[in-house]
Each structure stands twice: as C-alpha cells, then as structure tokens.
C-alpha cells in the first residue's frame, strides 16, 4: 500500500499505488499530508490533498492508511475548536505557533486527559457487540462505553482512565476503548426516525412566532453580504434551547471565529449557568484554509453532532455558510476535470446537499433514547441572487426558509428576515404546541399578525402614491400598528437584553400590540377621529 507521486496539479495528486480503496485516506509526500483517494485508474490513484502542495516533488512517497477519513469520538470533544479535519486548533497553536503550517496529525482528543470510568459489567461477564459496559461523565454529558465485539470480559478497569489505553480487555487480549473512530461520510446508525414535532425555541421573536423551527428540522437563511447572517447564526447558537451546539465556520472570516471564541468563553448559558463554550463544539475552516478540508468540515461536524445525538441529546448544528462548501465542491470537481453542471457546480451538488441535510432528524437511538439533530444553514448567494444553484438546492430540502433582505438590513432592521417571502413548513405542527403550552391565543395572533403585515404591504403602495396624509383613519391605524409590529416585535437587537425573548414574552408583546390595535379600532368604530382616540389612550395611561 505504498506508492510514489507521479503528478501534481493544484491539490490533486496522481499516485502510482496499488491496494488502496476509493475514499481511503493516504499520507502524501515527505511531509505526510492527509489526502483522500477520489478516483482509481489501473495502477494509479487520484488523491485529493487537504493541504497546500507547494514544494512537493515527483517521486515522493505516499502511504496508505487502510481507512477512510474518520473523526475520533469520545469524551473531551466539547469546548474544543477543530479544523475541517478535526485537528484541535488550540493544540496545533501550542505546537507550531500562531500560523497553521502543514503538519502530521495531532490527535483530536487529548490522550493524556484523565476520565473516570464507571463500569456496569465486571470481569468474566459475557457481552455482545454494541452493548454498553460502562460510562464516562464529561460535565453534563454521559458517554456510554460500548463493546466493539462479542466476547467475555477479562479485565475491567474502573476509575481513572485515559483515552490512550483500554478501559477493559476481552479474554483474547483485545481492548475496549472509551473513544471510537467513525468515517465522516457515513451517517451514524439509529433505530428509527421520528417525525419532528417539538419546537426548537431560538428566542428570536420573528422565528419562534412566525417561522418556527422544530427539533430535528432543517432551516436555511440565504442573504447577500451585510444582511446579518453570521450575527443571526451566532445569536441562535447562544440562546437556542438545545443541549449541544456544533458551530461550523465554513469558509468564513478568521476574525469572526476569534470573536465567537472570546464571546462564548465569557458568556454564560442561561439555562445551566455554565460558560457557553461548555455546550459548544466549533469546527472552523476559514476562507484561506485549504479548500478540500473546507469540503470535509461539514461532514466532520455532522458526525460529531450525530455522536452527541446518539447520547440522547438535542443537538443543533449551525453552518456558516453552506455556499462556501458548495464552492469548495466546485473547486475540487473542476480540478478533477469533471463535467460541470449549472454555473460550474458539479451535477451532484444537489444530491450531496440533500444527503447531508437528511442527516438531521429526531431519532430513537440504538439505546432507545430520543435524540435530535437540527440544522441551520446560512447561504451566501452571489450578488444576492436566489436563483443560483446552491440556494435552489437548499430550498428543496429545507423545512424553514428565512430570507434575509438587503433592504431591511440597510434600514438597520435586524434580524433582516423578510416576513412576506419566508416560510416554515413546521408552522402548522408546532402552533398547537405553543397554543397549549404558552398562550391560548398563539395561533390566532399569528394569523392576525400575518394578515396585518400582508394588508400593510398593499397599503404601502397606495400610500406612496397618495401620501400618508391621503389615507383613511382605519388605514393610518393599520400603518401605525404594523410599524409597531416591525419596530417592537420583529426587530430584535442582538447586543441588548432583548437578544433572547422567551415564548411567553413573545406572546405578551404581540398581545399588547394587537390589544392597542383593537382598542383604537373600537374607538374609530364609535365615529371618533384617529387623533382623538390616540389622545384618549395616551391620557388614560
């Protein structure tokens, strides 16, 4: 399984090698850079290298590893920042300074870290493959340790253990480890999928009230630059009602990630009171880091998210932005000289994206617990044009579409979610939940709010022609109410105390605005002028 380099073009390397399989991971060149076999052709393999190939020469060695691109799963993942290949960036920095240079693997999980193993089974017990033999607690998370195969346990070491050594041994000497490897491109198994029905509260009024999310659902928000995609993603990451957040910075800015790290370390999770970082895993491949690793980053992230889902947790995966992933796919495809589809994207863009999005869902895990993986993906359409392939491919799979509007962003209306174009396919299902749990008027208020906004948009066109003075009192009232809905309800400042709004408060706010509207409308019905009614109201309060 060893070979030599015969050709290089960009990050695509041709290798004379035999005995490797498609999608196998190989180590390329004297530097041992990680690569993935993307095509086999006789005695030649085409390898996609996850690093810059500058300086690599013809005839340098290539070694097969016999396994696919995998991630390591186990206790210690949380609070870390990884790159797209699951290299721990903190320790990469400790090893080689502030710049990321090509390097050999640094293990993703600290092998020297000590954990407390609590065994369920004892020496001499017969166990079957997949059976839980004990657990390790990592803060709020409990990691089960499962037997990799069927056999009789010979040694079980309870108490302090590390990830490097086994926590138990079988009679034949093979070990049971507290960590496991999983190929990133293979979804982790579960018993069955459940229909997603429980709402995922984000604390963003416009989302929770008008376009609700569910646990196990998928949402996308496309928007041109400067429309606040990143801030919305980060705000949701801070406040969403989930157990764990996996945040993927896919092809975005480095400063943004530094800011996120700093903020998440200082901010407290409002439910547990612990640092936000203690419920967050960050995967980051900034725009200037190797493109092939950017393509892999979302898979690395989703595999870790699935692992926590399998612990029976509610996990939220936020990716910013999926367009950069699409572009990475396009770059790789074009360097492999594949036939391009629309706008140069490979024709498998939409099927890959759909397969990725299908890894979201509420599931009954193999252990019988209920877990969920929700995805929120931001999309950066070039020129703000939603007809482009990535946005269109996303639209076919997503349950919630939140359209970020450049015009709203320019008028500093944040979150700049356009209320007439966005939709949630889950709205009907979860409205009942909110009506039962939060406010009996939820569904009705939602309907009225939509109606008012709808009527306003037609009225606005009239007002632009005749001027606001020329409108009827009832219409002016409508304009006043919708102005209040926009400024007091739909707008939400991510940098103030208002950044998180619990559902009960959301309902109360809407109730107050609609109450005002009804009050004035009743006054108008008595034949009073709008000014008189408003004067009466301000006097009585």
């Amino acid at each position, binding site marked *: 399984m060893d070979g030599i380099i015969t*050709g*290089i*073009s*960009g990050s695509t390397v*041709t290798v004379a090698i035999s005995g490797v399989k498609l999608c196998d991971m190989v180590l390329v060149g004297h530097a041992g850079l990680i690569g993935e076999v993307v095509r086999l052709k006789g005695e030649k393999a085409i390898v996609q290298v996850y690093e*810059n*190939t*500058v*300086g*690599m*020469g*013809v*005839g340098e060695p290539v070694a097969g590893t016999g396994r696919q691109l995998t991630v390591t799963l186990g206790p210690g993942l949380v609070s870390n*920042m990884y790159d797209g290949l699951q290299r721990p*960036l*903190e320790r990469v*920095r400790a090893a080689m*300074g*502030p*710049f*990321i*240079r090509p390097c050999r693997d640094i293990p993703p999980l600290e092998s020297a870290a000590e954990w407390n193993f609590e065994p369920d089974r004892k020496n001499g017990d017969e166990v079957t493959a997949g059976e839980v033999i004990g657990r390790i607690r990592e803060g709020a998370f409990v990691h089960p340790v499962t037997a990799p195969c069927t056999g009789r346990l010979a040694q079980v070491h309870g108490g302090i253990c590390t990830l490097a050594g086994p926590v138990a041994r079988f009679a034949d000497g093979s070990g049971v480890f507290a960590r496991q490897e999983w190929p990133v491109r293979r979804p982790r198994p579960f018993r069955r999928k459940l229909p997603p029905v429980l709402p995922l509260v984000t604390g963003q009024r416009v989302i929770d009230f008008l376009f609700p999310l569910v646990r196990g659902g998928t949402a996308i928000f496309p928007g*041109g*630059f*400067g429309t606040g995609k990143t801030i919305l993603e980060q705000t949701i990451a801070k406040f969403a009602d989930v157990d764990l957040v996996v945040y993927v*910075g896919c*092809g975005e*800015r*480095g*400063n943004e990630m*530094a800011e996120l*790290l*700093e903020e998440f370390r200082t901010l407290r999770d409002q439910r547990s009171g612990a640092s936000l970082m203690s419920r967050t895993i960050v995967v*980051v491949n*900034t*725009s*200037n*880091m190797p*493109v092939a690793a950017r393509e892999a980053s979302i898979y690395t992230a989703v595999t870790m998210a699935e692992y926590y889902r399998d612990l029976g947790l509610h996990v939220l995966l936020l990716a910013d932005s999926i367009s*950069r992933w699409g*572009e990475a796919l*396009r*770059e790789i495809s*074009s360097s492999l000289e594949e036939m*391009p589809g629309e*706008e*140069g994207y490979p024709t498998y863009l939409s099927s890959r994206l759909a397969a990725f999005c299908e890894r979201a869902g509420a599931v009954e895990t193999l252990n019988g617990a209920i877990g969920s993986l929700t995805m929120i993906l931001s999309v*950066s359409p*070039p*020129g703000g044009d939603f007809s482009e392939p990535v946005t269109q491919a996303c639209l076919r799979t997503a349950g919630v579409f939140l359209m970020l509007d450049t015009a709203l962003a*320019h*008028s*500093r209306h944040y979150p700049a979610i356009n209320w007439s174009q966005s939709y949630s396919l889950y709205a009907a299902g979860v409205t009942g939940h909110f009506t039962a749990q939060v406010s009996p008027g939820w569904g009705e208020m939602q309907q009225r709010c939509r109606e008012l906004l709808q009527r306003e948009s037609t009225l606005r066109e009239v007002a*632009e*022609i*005749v*001027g*606001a*003075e020329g409108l009827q009192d009832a219409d002016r009232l409508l304009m006043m109410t919708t102005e209040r809905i926009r400024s007091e309800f739909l707008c939400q400042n991510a*940098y103030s105390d208002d950044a998180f709004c619990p559902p009960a408060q959301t309902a109360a706010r809407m109730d107050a605005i609609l109450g005002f509207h009804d009050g004035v409308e009743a006054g108008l019905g008595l034949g009073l002028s709008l000014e008189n009614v408003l004067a009466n109201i301000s006097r009585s309060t």
Partner: protein
Amino acid sequence: MRLCEHRYRTVSSVGGPLMFVDGVFSVRMGEMVRIVYPDGSTAAGEVLKFSGRAVLIQVFGETAGIDLGAEIIFSDTVRRAPLARSMVGRVFNGSFEPIDGLPPFIPEQWGEVNGFPINPTARACPEEFIETGFTAIDTLNTLVKGQKLPIFSCAGLPSQEVAAGILRNARLAGGGEFVVVFVAMGLTYRDYSFYMDVLRKMGTGFVAFVNRADEPVLERLLAPRFGLACAEYLAFVCAMDVLVVVTDITNYCDALREVSTAREELPGRRGYPGYMYSDLASLYERAGRIQGTAGSVTMLPVVTMPEDDITHPIPDLTGYITEGQIVLSRELHQRGVFPPIDVLPSLSRLMQHGIGAGRTREDHRRIADALYRHYAKGRYARGLESVVGREGMIEADRVMLDFADAFEAEVVGQGAARRAIGASLDAGAALLRRFFLEVT
C-alpha cells in the same frame, strides 16, 4: 537537494504565459525556474503542474521571442520573499526587485509568499479605534486595527483622493504611527505618480510594490502576495502597525481571469475562475492581529465596481470576505460632496468593538444610530418626493428631507480637512440638535 543544476532544452509547446517542458526528471510543485531566451536574456517562471515527466511552467515576463530551443534551468527551490526591516522606504516591482535605483537589500529572513493561515484561536479580536479623519467613516463606519475594509468605488469617482486622505490622516487611538505597505496592481502612470507623491510627502515609513498597467499581468498576482508577506513580517516579527493599501482589486481579478483562461480552466461567473473567492480570501484574510504580538495588519483594498454594479463578482466576493465596505456614490460626487461616501450601503462589521467609552466617546453609538436612522428616513422621503412632490408630503417627511440634505452637506461633506473623532461626533450631534431630533 540536487547536487548539480538541472538544465533542459526540451520545451514542447509555448502559448501565452504557459510553457510545457518534457522529459524532466525531478521536479517540485511551485519550483522556480529561469528561462534563457535565444538572445541570452532571461525570465523567471514557476512550475504550475506536472504529470509524469511533462511539466507545465508559468512564465513571469514576456514570452515573445521565445522558441522551442529555449533553455530551462530548474532551481530546486520554491519562491520565497526576502524580508528585512530595511525594506521600509523602498519601492519594488511586482517581482520584488527594487525599482528606486537603490541596490537590493540584505534579507534577514525568507518568508512564504502565500503565507500560512492565522490559526483562528491565535487571533486577537480587532478592537482598537483608528481615526481616519473622515466623519462618514469614523462616526458611522468605524475602522479598527486589524480590520479589512474595502473602498467600493466607480470609474470616475475620487477613490484615490479618499484613499490618500486616509493615508495622510490615519492615526492610532493610542498614538503611534502606521507603516504603509502600498500595493499597486495594473495602475496607470497617472495614478501611480499621484500615490507616490502622497506616500513621499507623508513622512511615515512606507514600502511600495508597483505593477503598472504596461507591466506583466502575472506580476499583478504576485505583487499583493509579496506586499502582504512584507506586511506580516513588519507586523508580527517587527511589531509594527501596518496599513496595507491595495489598489485596484479589479485589475487583480482581471489578471486572475486572464491567467485562468490561459490555463484553460473552467470559467465561473462572468468568466472569473470558480476559485476566485478562495483566492481573494488568501489575500484579505492575512489582515488581523495575533494574541501576544504587538503588531497588526489593517487592510484597505480599493475595488472599482465595473458598471457601478455592487453585485458584480468582484465587489460581491470582496464584500463576503471583508469586514464591511465603504461605498462611494456617484450622485454625491456630482453634487460636489467630498468624500462622496454613501453611508447607507456602507458598513463596518467590527465597529461595535472599537467605539464607546474608553475608545472613542460614550455617546458614539447613540449619535451614530440616530444619524443613520434619520438619514435613512430622509432618503426614503426623497423617494416619496419624486412621486408626490414636496407639497404632497407631511411636515415630518419634509423635515427629514432637509435633514438628509444637511447631513450630506455638513456631516459627510467635510471637504479635504481632517476632523478628529470628537469634532466628528460634535458635528453629528449639532446637526441632530438643530433639527430637534433626539439622540436615543
């Protein structure tokens, strides 16, 4: 390492800036080569890709006059940037050769031309205010140290004067001076001499990398990389605060497109290569600050929007990578407003970190928000005015119209004079007071 020099006379084909050499024994990706022309002159080249014994070379320089008998000398090294403190005060061409008539400097260190990505965990958040002297930037779209903030201009607008104004007037909040790294790509002689004049009169240190419009296109791709390698060295090794002005990104992208087409790569939008986002990011992302290091790299790229179109791939991809944008407006320019900055589409994403008590002034955010909000209303009212006329508007809207006019004339249109941040904020607050508008 090779024990003897490898020379080949096996050129099999030449076209544009690309050349195929056959039968090469040992080659590296990105290896530097020298090409000896039949008349004895030489040019530099770089290995672009290889397959078996066939090597594709990209030639930096003129390929006219080359024939298949040309000699190719392989160097066994990849391109590196010579770096030293003594670069300051010098002018180089796009291949890092001095063009100021002075002898070459002695490098203290050889650096990577493309650099390495900064580890996100090692980055320090940009948060130190930079005073540019322009109210429209300082008050409403604040620049901070380590930020990359492009100027989006249109053909015929004074982007040069705005950039020059920032070069002359930029001050660090805590005192101290910038070292300027100036990178010119495809600049006309007129623009070039304008900028050089500004740089020479500034009195602070500068390093210039100049590729003029009639110089090799490939050097347009190299110049910013050398410039940034130099900036990183000065910032992170010599602990200086570096301001990098890169002009014009549009010429850079056109060069990228030209080279990509010559390589017969698949074109993306408008013929620009599909990897343009990653390529631009490899430049812009080199701006920043590093924890535990004193220096910083702040970047001000200038982008001329083709057809005044902000959705054109060049400004579009730039806007996705950079931390905001300063947009110049043709309308304001025609009304004689200088700097003609349209604050509505302009944005500084890092503004909130650089302003407020202890940085600028405690009331900065409130003044900026109020100005922005009322100006946006005024601009909306202008749209109404064109439909219903001033007479048909309610009094409140008419006030907003006047406010927008006054804002453009007095707050944005400050002329060439420098305004300190205090004066900028006072000008904004005074305008709000005059119109009896609240600062909330």
